Structure formats: C-alpha cells, structure tokens
C-alpha cells in the first residue's frame, strides 16, 4: 500500500484501525489505576473484564448465550496453578498453555453445543459447566478438590530460565494486567472488525441468509467458541496468579452466571461494554455488599431493565447520553442540519 503517512494515520485512527481501541483501553486502564481505591480492586476489574470479553464475543457478536464460561475460567486457573507449582512455569507460558488448552476444550464442547439452537445450546453449555465442576472433584489429585491449589508463586516474565520481571500483587501486577488487557482489547477489537467478525454478526442477525451466501455456520461458530474459551481461560489464569491459589469456586456454574451478568450489564454490543460491566459489578460487589446485604436485588432489577428497555447495557446508556448531549449542543448552534438520522448510521466496526 502507499507509504503516505497521512493515509496511514487516518487508517490507524479511523474505524477498524488499531488506534481507537488502543487509545480507549489505554486511557481506561490509566483512569482505573488512578481512580480505583485499591490495586486489588483495579486488577480484579480487569480480570473480570477479560472474562466478560470472552462471553461477549459469543453473546454480543454471534448471538450465542454461553452459561458455561466457568469451564474455561476455572480450567485456566487450574492450569496456571499446576504449571506454576509443578513445572515452575512463568506467567507468559502459563497464559499460552491456558489459552491453548481452553481453546481445545472449547472445541470439544462446541462440537456438541454448536449444532443446537437457542435454549438447547444454552443448556448444553450449562451441562458442561456442571460436569466440569464435578470433574474438578474427580481429579482431586490435580485440582486439590475442595481445598484447591495454593502456593502459586508470584507472576514472572522471562525466558530461558531467567525472570526479568516479577509482578507481585500490588501496583506491578496491575501494570502487567493493564498491559495485557490493552493488548487483548486491541486484538479482539481487530478480530471483531475483521471479515470474520463481520460474518459473526451476519450469522447472529440472519443465519439462513449467511448460510445461503456461502458461509459455513458451524465453522464460524466453532471458531468464536474457541476464541471465547481461550480469552476467558486467560482471565482465569491471571486470576490465579493474582490471588495466589486456585479454588473450585472459579469452575462453579455460579461463576458462569456472574460472567454473563457482567457481560450483559456492561452492554453486549460493544467490547468496551465488558470493561464497563466489570467496573460496575466489582464496585457494587465491593462497596454495596457491605452496606446492604441484598444488593443483588438491584443487580436483578438492572438486568430486567436492560433486557426490556436498555438492550445496550451501561455502554448503550452512556452512548445514548453522549448522543443526546451532542444533539442538544448542535441544536444550540444555528445549524439546523442535525438530522434525526444521525444516530442511525451504523459503524460496522463498532
């Protein structure tokens, strides 16, 4: 392509470019680091956001509801603990192991689930979540059963037997998680903006049309299922390094429901929604639960409200608010050219 720097810059910063998601996620993590009341809250938010990103790829972009993401969150965690304690693997390798193995497991589960539609798909993901929970007890030697696996060493980066960066829980871990999050966010945004991402949306909106056009529905669904598993697995891996131990709670179906709640709460039509959902959920869980033990009721009401009225979740509400402000501001100016059509133009790259 042309070496024109102006064109390159506009490609970078325009829709589909890497500039916007990089900027958005970078600014978000910086603000998070500055405003969050503790490093551990901030880190937890990032971890949950990553888990929700995996769920969002399936639900928001492909229209598939998986209440079984706990399989990968838990598996990624167990893999982290096992590889770190038994083989002394560093975080970078643990992440890769988690991602790859979770993708493989997702392929297996996906082979069962993908062929069904609607509620049957959901139930299969749920059934496998319960089965995975059960298996965690069957393989107690590896998972530590009820007690889990403790003694996970601090996350380190390096190679060839050397570690040149150690991230202990605290600011260094957060910085590391932040970098990881930005990378993941940019990569996934590119995935969503890519031709494959466009096909996923086409499948969600009208599966038979997509099929008639020539897309193999099964292949694409399986692909996104595997990517989603890998991403949630990465989140689970990071979580175990963060907490220092792997527990069976991560692989319970309640975790899967929590991930779905975060995903929907934040907004399923945009990747950034997953970040927002994590922020709100962790904030509520950390602060509201002390004040009012029945805070989950608010969560329930929020979910009902989102499903019925604000399908775009928190992200949708924020976006609508900004659009409203923009609309009002431009009405103030003498230019009557503001068309009601404005909000309707669709950015495919979202």
């Amino acid at each position, binding site marked *: 392509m042309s070496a024109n720097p102006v064109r390159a810059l506009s490609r970078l910063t325009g*829709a*589909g*470019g890497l500039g916007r998601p990089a900027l958005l996620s970078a600014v978000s993590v910086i603000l998070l680091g500055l405003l969050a009341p503790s490093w551990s809250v901030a880190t937890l938010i990032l971890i949950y956001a990553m888990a929700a990103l995996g769920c969002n790829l399936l639900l928001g972009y492909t229209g598939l509801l998986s209440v079984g993401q706990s399989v990968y969150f838990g598996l990624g965690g167990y893999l982290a603990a096992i590889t770190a304690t038994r083989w002394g693997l560093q975080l970078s390798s643990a992440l890769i192991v988690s991602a790859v193995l979770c993708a493989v497991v997702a392929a297996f589960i996906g082979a069962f689930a993908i062929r069904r539609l609607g509620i049957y798909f959901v139930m299969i993901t749920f059934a496998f979540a319960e089965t995975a929970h059960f298996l965690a007890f069957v393989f107690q030697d590896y998972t530590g059963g009820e007690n889990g696996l403790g003694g996970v060493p601090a996350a380190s980066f390096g190679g060839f037997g050397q570690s040149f960066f150690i991230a202990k829980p605290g600011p260094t871990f957060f910085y590391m998680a932040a970098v990881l999050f930005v990378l993941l966010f940019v990569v996934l945004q*590119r*995935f969503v*903006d*890519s*031709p*494959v*991402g*466009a*096909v996923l949306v*086409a499948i969600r*909106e*009208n599966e*038979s*049309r*997509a*099929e*008639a*056009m*020539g*897309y*193999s*529905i099964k292949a694409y669904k399986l692909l996104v299922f595997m990517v989603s598993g890998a991403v949630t697995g990465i989140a689970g891996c990071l979580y175990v390094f963060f907490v220092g131990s792997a527990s069976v709670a991560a692989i319970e179906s309640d975790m899967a429901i929590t991930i779905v709640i975060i995903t929907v709460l934040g907004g399923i039509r945009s990747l950034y929604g997953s970040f927002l959902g994590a922020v709100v959920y962790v904030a509520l869980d950390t602060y509201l639960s002390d004040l009012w033990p029945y805070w989950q009721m608010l969560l329930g009401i929020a979910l009902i409200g989102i499903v019925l009225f604000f399908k775009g979740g928190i992200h949708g509400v924020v976006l609508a608010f900004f659009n409203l402000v923009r609309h009002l501001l431009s009405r103030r100016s003498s230019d009557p050219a503001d068309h009601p059509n404005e909000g*309707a*133009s*669709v950015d*495919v*790259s979202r």
Partner: protein
Amino acid sequence: MSAVDVTYEAPVILAAESLSKWFGSFGALDSVDLSVTRGSLHAVIGPNGAGKTTLFNVLTGQLRPSSGRVLFNGEPIEKLPVHRRAHLGMARSFQITSAYPELPVRENVRLAAQAVDCKVRRSVLRAAGHYEEPLAVTRDVLQKSGLSGFAETQAGNLSHGLSRRLEIAMALASRPQLLLLDEPLSGMGVDDIAGMEKFLRSLVPEHTVLLVEHNMPVTLAIADRITVLESGKVLTEGSPREVADNAQVREAYLGRGHV
C-alpha cells in the same frame, strides 16, 4: 477462489431428475423433471399449492428430496450442504427480503462478495474494509443493480422495490453462474416492476436465471422457457407463447369452466 472457475460448460446448467418430495403422506413433488439451459431465463410457475416453493427449496438445498437427483453442471448436488453452493456457482435470493436491515447496502453486498473469497473470509488480521477485492466486486454489482446511489443507505430504509433489487444484488455478488430467484417481483408496485423486468432481463446471458414467480404478465414477457407445476407434477413446459396458449394451464389457474 472465485465461483466462475468452471472448466466444463455444459449446455444444461441445472437439471432435476424425477424429483419427489414427501411430507409424511403428503406428496409435495411428484417426479418433477426440469432442465435449465445455460444463459437462459427459466421460470417456474403454477397455482398456489403447486409445489413451486418446495421445488425451489430442494433446488437450493434447503430440503433434501425424497427421491430423484439435482444436477449442477452434470454433478449431483441434492445432498450438498447449503453453504457450499455459493462456491459452486449457484446463488439464491429470498422471497421475503433477508438483507441485514441495520447495515448499509454496501456492507450487505460486500458480505455476500466476501463469502466466496477464500482468502478474505478467513481473515482476522485486518479490518474488513482493508480488502479491496470484495469492495471492487461490490461496486460492480451495485452499479449493475442500479443501487450505486444507495450504497450508504441502511438496507432497512430502502423502498420495497429497491430492497428486492438488493436481494438480487447480494446473489450476484458471489459471481454465480446460476441465479435462483424466489419471487423477485413479490410485493412490488407497478412503478418498480418495469425497472425490475429490465434488470432481470439484463442478467442473461451472462448468468443463467431460474425464477419462481406469480406475476404472469412479466413472466411471460421475460422468460425464455417456462415450466408449469400443478399439484406437485410438471403440467407442461415450453416457450411463453406455448404455455400461454395451453388450455390445461389456463384450466389449472382459473379452474374448469373458464377456458
């Protein structure tokens, strides 16, 4: 890999041999034979309940026949999964517009063009807009369909007539040899029909067109050959003139006593 990679150009591009389809004890199709010549515009008509939709669904792969074969360029395809057909060179449109209403017209067509581009449709490394080939095909198709001026319009905001054109444009985007059109004129108003007639006629002989239709005057005007179905069987087949003069056809449509 484009769809027009054909080395064997048979004169009969699509053939149905003794196609039958049973739903329980109901015979929707009974030993239907069909032969579509390359480069022609072939219409399938018949009164309600004649089996046109069933035949169409078997030809496009939505249904498997109970017996019989469907041959595309001589190759049996009746068991071929739906998503493989666009790659062979068969593309279909839908009777009820199935474009993506929230996407612009350009993106609708681009998605269809991308589907048969093996390199692009697997790509996760670049944004969709980066790839020039599907965009070029899109521009070309939009121009041929008369939709260039509406490229950025949301498909859901198109008038009915234009959305029927979009249906066909999406089928064209896969560069097919054969277009299977399901009631392309359905619901169209008088103003749009003339334009659509011209558009459909412009598709041959570069493509072959098989269409199912209810609109008799237009079908008689544009078709090269017409197959008439009644109660799941082929009543007759011939040129428009032959079919129009056929007493049995009139009887099938209007009932006895009207001939």
